[in-house]
């Protein structure tokens, strides 16, 4: 029976998130329809990612804001506020994406899409938050590189064992 361990599930989820983010940044490749539906899928993927990381989020929040639980080191602080900034950025990106949607949201609400010229400010927020997200996602990857490398090694080991 195929059994998906927690680590493999997290690795697959994170890999899917990364590929989805790369795809979302290239509308010319995906087209607007796929871009918008993929964008609407993102809150669920991010929610799952956050739920899987909850132990770290809760422990770090306690360490940062409680005087009793010991002090967090600089790297942990940077990682925490980087993650928080990324969450804020992705929230802005999804919200602005919903507000300027031309295909998916009009399909779901059965209402005509607003002309892009009426939503220039939100279009600009979407573009800017998307540019910031590229940098923040990359730094998020960079600061969690050791975990990522360990997960890749573990996954490669699983493949070798499965090939026997």
């Amino acid at each position, binding site marked *: 029976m195929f059994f998906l361990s927690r680590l493999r599930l997290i690795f697959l989820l994170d890999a899917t998130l*990364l590929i989805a*983010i*790369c*795809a979302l*940044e*290239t*509308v*010319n*490749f*995906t*087209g*607007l*329809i*796929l871009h918008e539906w993929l964008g609407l899928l993102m*809150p669920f993927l991010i*929610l799952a990612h*956050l*739920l899987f990381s*909850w132990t770290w989020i809760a422990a770090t929040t306690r360490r940062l804001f409680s005087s009793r639980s010991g002090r967090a*080191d*600089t*790297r942990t602080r*940077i990682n925490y506020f980087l993650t928080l900034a990324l*969450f*804020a950025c992705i*929230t*802005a990106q999804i*919200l*602005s994406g919903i507000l300027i949607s031309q*295909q998916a949201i009009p399909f779901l609400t059965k209402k005509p899409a607003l002309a*892009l*010229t009426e939503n*220039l*400010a*939100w*279009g*600009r*927020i979407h573009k800017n938050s998307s540019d910031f997200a*590229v*940098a923040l*996602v*990359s*730094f998020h*990857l*960079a*600061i969690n*590189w050791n975990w990522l490398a360990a997960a890749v090694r573990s996954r490669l080991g699983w493949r070798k064992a499965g090939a026997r």
Partner: protein
Amino acid sequence: MMPFVRTLGRIVLIAVAATFFAGLTFVYSRTVRPRAERREFRGRGPREQRDPHPRPTEPRPGAFPVFLRQCGVFAVVTLAGRKILRLRL
């Protein structure tokens, strides 16, 4: 039952945080002026008007190199971040 309630509690907390940041984005949106309205951009028109090739609706497999280039951008910025964050913080 308990793990379900615990997970539900976490989802509510994430939703509250997302609502807070959405509120901040709404506040920020009031201060954003579209480029077309600014004096220095007057005459150029909004992006949609000056872009002769609007974004395609359907996927374009021919634009796959654009996707690869974006993956490359992520890789380069990640490596740069790795170099910066490797410093003893």
